């Protein structure tokens, strides 16, 4: 028996929630002065504090507190006037002190929300808390089949990551999204990532682990009024995976419930390969973390005046920027949805700000550039083509320097070389051939080389001109304007309409 997604929705109502960990982009770690730079030689960015040596004590990174307050304010949270860190006690070799210094029942930011948009419909995701903690070291288990600790011959620990500031953003359970649950979950993480990027507090790279999601999902029978048992899915490391993880858990849980079984409250792991979840450690045998207030740190008590200063200095947030753009660009609501779904609203806006007409900017970003981004499996924003490049291309096409085809070649060259538009145009000699006599000569050569095609055109089969156009374009290395070439050929062969 295989359920369809529609079967699930007919009988069950999904509720999801997300716990998102974000590595802050501070220069130094949460509780010591060590560098946070990614990719250094193992164990070169450590000190007595982040190695948990006897006697070493933490001191809070004020910048991390400020960044967390920024995040809380951007998510419409209240900022606690007084809060503390706690110790989460458990033994694991990647934790030098065998406790993690984390906020527990007294988070810095509470009770916010984030509005997200899916196909023009607004969903409000409640934010329960935003709290600060420290990252652990990184284990590498060597030998054994699974890469997990069990069965490994030995394990290596890199403490460079130990103590990097981590922010955990926890949503309230989100009910009432029905069939849209997977998309709303994805849209939430997307919106959160955009906010974090706008705030400049993190590089939010899911592939490097600087933004990581745990997705909680439960199902309840439609109309039951009570929420079902939830599972927590870890290892969800891309936006697409967020959507897939919710969907696959909905299907898995529905099959269990249909069969009269119960859903176990447990941690599961998402597999990028199979697109489904596998059981991890069961919550029922989970550790008692013995939380208690961290006695080595004084409470964090942000001065309300300072909080207001931070609020006043917040950059324009993505939602406001989009509203402003929509107004100033004058695009339709439908276009806005389309651009939003493709993740190019800001890019279009910035391209327009760099001097391109709205329609041109939108066409480039929704067309060729989205296609390239899809080919490369990256977001348009990460493609490597800047809005300024696009505005420059639009200008070069407008003044007749480049054809559209040449402009696309220029994009390819930018992607290959990382150089800017003017540089690649110069390097590759990209320039529309506008010398008509050269084109006439090339057209004559193409007709002579392919008399069959020429005859067909003369006989009224205008479509056959395509082969001749192609030959001319090839002969001019793509630098001719295809429309002009077509016209010249049709003129010569008398097949034009």
């Amino acid at each position, binding site marked *: 028996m295989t359920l369809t997604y529609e079967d699930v929705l007919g009988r069950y109502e999904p509720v999801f929630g997300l716990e998102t960990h974000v590595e802050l982009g501070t220069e130094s770690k949460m509780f010591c002065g060590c560098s946070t730079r990614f990719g250094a030689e193992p164990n070169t960015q450590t000190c*007595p504090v982040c*190695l*948990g*040596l*006897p*006697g*070493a*004590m*933490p*001191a*809070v990174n004020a910048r991390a507190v400020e960044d967390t307050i920024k995040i809380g304010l951007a998510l419409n949270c209240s900022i606690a006037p007084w809060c503390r860190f706690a*110790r989460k*006690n458990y*033994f694991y*070799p990647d934790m*030098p*002190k*065998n*406790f993690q210094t984390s906020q527990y029942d007294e988070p810095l930011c509470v009770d916010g929300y984030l509005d997200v948009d899916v196909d023009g419909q607004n969903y409000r995701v409640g934010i329960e808390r935003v709290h600060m903690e420290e990252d652990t070291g990184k284990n590498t288990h060597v030998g054994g089949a699974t890469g997990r*600790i069990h069965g490994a011959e030995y*394990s290596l*620990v890199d403490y460079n990551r130990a103590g990097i500031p981590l922010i955990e953003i926890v949503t309230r359970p989100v009910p009432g999204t029905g069939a849209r649950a997977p998309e709303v979950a994805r849209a939430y993480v997307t919106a959160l990532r955009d906010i974090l990027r706008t705030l400049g507090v993190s590089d939010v790279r899911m592939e490097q682990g600087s933004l990581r999601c745990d997705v909680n999902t439960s199902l309840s029978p439609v109309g039951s009024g009570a929420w079902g048992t939830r599972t927590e899915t870890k290892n969800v490391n891309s936006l697409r995976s967020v959507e897939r993880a919710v969907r696959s858990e909905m299907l898995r849980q529905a099959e269990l419930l249909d069969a009269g079984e119960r859903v176990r409250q447990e941690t599961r792991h998402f597999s990028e390969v199979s697109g489904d979840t596998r059981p991890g450690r069961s919550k029922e045998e989970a550790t*008692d973390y*013995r*939380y*208690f207030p961290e*006695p*080595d*740190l*004084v409470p964090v008590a942000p001065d309300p005046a300072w909080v207001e200063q931070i609020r006043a200095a917040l950059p324009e947030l993505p939602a406001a920027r989009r509203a402003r753009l929509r107004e100033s660009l004058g695009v339709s609501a439908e276009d806005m949805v389309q651009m939003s779904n493709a993740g190019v609203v800001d890019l279009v806006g910035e391209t327009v700000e760099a001097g391109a007409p709205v329609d041109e900017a939108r066409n480039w970003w929704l067309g060729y550039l989205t296609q390239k981004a899809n080919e490369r499996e990256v977001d348009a924003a990460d493609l490597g083509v800047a809005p300024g490049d696009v505005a420059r291309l639009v200008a070069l096409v407008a003044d007749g320097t480049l054809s559209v085809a040449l402009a696309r070649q220029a994009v390819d060259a930018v992607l290959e070389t990382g150089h800017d538009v003017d540089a690649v145009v110069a390097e590759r000699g990209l320039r529309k051939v506008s010398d008509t006599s050269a084109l006439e000569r090339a057209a004559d050569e193409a007709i002579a080389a392919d008399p069959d095609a020429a005859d067909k055109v003369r006989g009224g089969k205008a479509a056959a001109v395509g082969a001749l156009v192609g030959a001319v374009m090839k002969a001019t290395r793509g630098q001719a304007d295809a429309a002009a070439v077509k016209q010249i050929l049709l003129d010569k062969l008398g097949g034009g309409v």
Partner: protein
Amino acid sequence: MTELTALTAAGTAASIAAGDVSAVEVAQAHLDRIEAVDGRVHAFLHIDAEGALRAARDVDARRAAGQALGPLAGVPLAMKDVVVTQGLPTTAGSKILEGWLPPYDATISARVKAAGLVMLGKTNMDEFAMGSSTENSAYGPTHNPWDLSKIPGGSGGGSAAALAAYEAPLAIGTDTGGSIRQPAAVTGTVGAKPTYGGVSRYGLIALASSLDQAGPCARTVLDAALLHEVIGGHDPCDSTSIAQPVPPVVAAARRGANGDLKGVRVGVVRELAGGGDAAAYGGGGGYQAGVLASFDAAVHTLRELGAEVVEVGCPHFEYALAAYYLILPSECSSNLARFDSVRYGMRVGDDGTRSLEEVMSLTREAGFGPEVKRRIIIGTYALSSGYYDAYYGQAQKVRTLIARDFAAAFERADVLVSPTSPFVAFGIGERIEDPMAMYVNDLCTLPASLAGTPAISVPCGLSDGLPVGLQVMAPALADDRCYRVAAAFEAATEQFRPPAGVLA
């Protein structure tokens, strides 16, 4: 025992500054004394003769070059082994850290070095500072120089014994529930627990973070004050350290030495002066008659010095012991979790057949002594889900009540006094089998620990030929009051210092 080892720290520093004696001669005299007597006392776990002489030569060179020297430059110091010292073994009295060489200095280690003090070595202590007799050291007990069959107090018995045996004129101690004050009392020396946050804890191997406080130990109140000013003051590496100047303890000690306490209101804490029921804690731990007699005489002396003596009641002090023995184990169960064999220290059973968890367990089983295990188990239990509120949470409330008792008492008195310990030094082995009998040693010292307020112990008499201590307590950040009163009392009662002839 030479003239040089009999000097006070202040006197030694003055002699060096005047050029009457070199720092190297002073250091060598103390190293010789250690060589002569420490086989019997066992105050030291590690002696750093080479480092001490090097530091002394440096002081002599700086003096010869005409550079200004600090007020304690060239004075030898014994460091409690719970304080991290770069490149010098630091074990906290535990097997689990045997062989560990710290790659960094505690803030107070760095401060004493920068001040030109000459570190002779590391002193013995109860394992991870858990105990009141130094019998819980994994390296064998320290003996009280007054009577080698007796305990020197604890946990800082090594530091106190080093002073009483004239092996050093100054020592660093740490005090979580009385570990500076009770050893000072039973060895006839002076020990001060500063206001919590007054001295950096960075580099102190933590027992209970919310209670631990390093402080000075000496044979005189002025010497303790001089050392207090060297190690005290704000440290950004310790977020609980107070961003305020060190209270003027040296000036207070000098002022007190004139013996005038007119206008000072001294409160006798009824619950700590035999009025409470120490025996209720079991193990025959009631106040010894000789201790109470010495204390009564001390109060009489204070009155003679001009102090106005009042009796104050602190009704919640009777819960201090119970609260302390929940808070301390809870915090220490977490603080000691890092000793897991992964990064440093002992490792047991890593023969390629055992899992990480097994190696951690075997190491902790072999590396920790019974008292440490007892407290880790109690603390783990007290913090467990479902028990937290009843134990740790409740104990923290008691702490607030004790602080309120202090606040009320300090409305009526400038300082409070009590015996430092209910009894004098007992025989080695006498109480070791009975943890409760051991815990009541701290009865009088615990309230100030829980409230984070300063207190000092100064010799106040002898009972059966063994020293008794007077505890002087003050409000937070008023450490100078402790020193003034203690110095005045000391000036009137010099006969209670350790006799120079001990172990001659």
